[in-house]
């Protein structure tokens, strides 16, 4: 049982945690990763992104890293964000919750189809 974890997470927070699970990213990097992970289905603007980042920093789910330059972009220095230990635990708990929901949905669906075939 995971303690001190508040789930369910909002979709924005879940996507940001997923984007940061692999590596530290700056704001625009997170935005791009979320878009790519969701195959363009989730579009996050700077308002939602930074509002969520603020709340996640406050909750200790992520941390700020030092400012550095992204070699793929211009020479502007950017703040990078990384996932914290609590963030990883929270993400794991949320993914477990999703898998439980899917299992229940799968069982209901099988039960429904068995009932439909039986009747």
């Amino acid at each position: 049982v995971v303690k001190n974890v508040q789930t369910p997470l909002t979709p924005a927070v879940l996507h940001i945690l997923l984007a940061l699970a692999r590596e530290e990213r700056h704001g625009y990097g997170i935005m791009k990763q979320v878009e790519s992970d969701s195959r363009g289905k989730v579009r996050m603007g700077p308002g939602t992104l930074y509002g969520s980042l603020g709340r996640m920093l406050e909750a200790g789910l992520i941390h700020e890293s030092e400012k550095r330059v992204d070699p793929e972009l211009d020479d502007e220095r950017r703040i990078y964000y990384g996932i914290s230990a609590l963030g990883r635990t929270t993400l794991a708990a949320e993914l477990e919750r999703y898998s439980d929901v899917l299992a229940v949905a799968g069982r209901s669906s099988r039960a429904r189809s068995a009932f439909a075939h039986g009747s």
Partner: protein
Amino acid sequence: MAADSFLQRSRALYARLLRLYPTQFRERFGEGMEQTFADSCRRRRTEGVGLFGFVLWVFAETIVAILREHATRSRRQVMRDDTVRFLKTVKYSAIAVGVLMVAGILTVMFLARGKTGDDGDIAGVVAPALLLTCVSGVVAVVAAVRQKRAQRRVVHP
């Protein structure tokens, strides 16, 4: 050329829009938001995707986010004020109870002065009153400390 000018104007306008955020939020994330906006616009321009609709969407989304930040800030302020008010009430109530208990003990001691035997035995009354006085003192101190902490707590934007 026209796209460059539109991009520059949009970026300047977006920087102005960000001024509507609460100060602490703007100081912490304003620069990052401007960079993110500029990066997104640059990518769309490179990919040859229309900029106007995107800029409009970002502006609308940011306005909603600004309203949300202000609402969150106000809600937290109200919660903090309520907490401070509650702790003040607890503190003054505990002090009042303590003062009443001390006054009661002194009165009982004064009335029992010079009496002997069962009439002079006031321990059964004074002991619980003393205990209550001590408890009230502890509660008052704890409430005062927590009230100070709640007042000092920074309200996040």
